[in-house]
């Protein structure tokens, strides 16, 4: 199992700030699994951070990965 963190309006979809799901090989697979569990994610705007870096392409994951789904920022 691996922990995925959610922020902002994404927590309205998941009903939680983090969920534990089975480890996936990479972020594409993980997002596919998450979308099945939370179909509303398909229409949500967000970026993914792995180990505190925003990713722009499919990224390999392991049990030590920190995975965070971030909707558009609205600080300040």
């Amino acid at each position, binding site marked *: 199992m691996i922990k995925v963190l959610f922020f902002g*309006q994404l927590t309205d979809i998941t009903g939680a700030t983090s969920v534990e799901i089975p480890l996936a090989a990479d972020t594409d697979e993980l997002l596919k699994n998450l979308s099945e569990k939370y179909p509303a994610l398909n229409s949500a705007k967000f970026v993914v951070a792995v180990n505190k870096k925003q990713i722009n392409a499919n990224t390999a994951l392991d049990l030590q990965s920190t995975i965070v789904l*971030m909707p558009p*920022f609205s*600080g*300040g």
Partner: protein
Amino acid sequence: MAEKKVRNIFVKGPIDPSFIGESIGQHQTKTAIGGHSIFLGQVRADEIDGRKVSAIEYTAYEEMALEKMHVIRQDIFDNYPITCMHVYHSLGVVETGQICLFVFTSAPHRKAAIDSCEETVERLKAELPIWGKELFEDASYQWKENK
């Protein structure tokens, strides 16, 4: 001017105006400074579809935000001849009329202070993983979106 330390920028709840006054006063020993530029964000009582904002509740992916802020700080120090920079952002509930953001740059000459302050504000709004939840007086809410 580079610094290694990742500084905390987050404060719980609103930023107190007297804290801002004290921060300014702490620069009186830095006599190479000729100008300070300060930007303050204040929570606005927006009215959206007839509902009035009473507060914004801020959350952040703190670890990543602090690392990103560290990069922004280094970039700004690399690009502007400034003496110092201080940034504070609220977490948790900040009511309308209260201050949620305090950006403070100082430099020997005014242009560097003014330009670096503005650029810091723009960058942190665009790059820091922080989210504002607009709480309405009727207990409903909506997630804030930066323009």
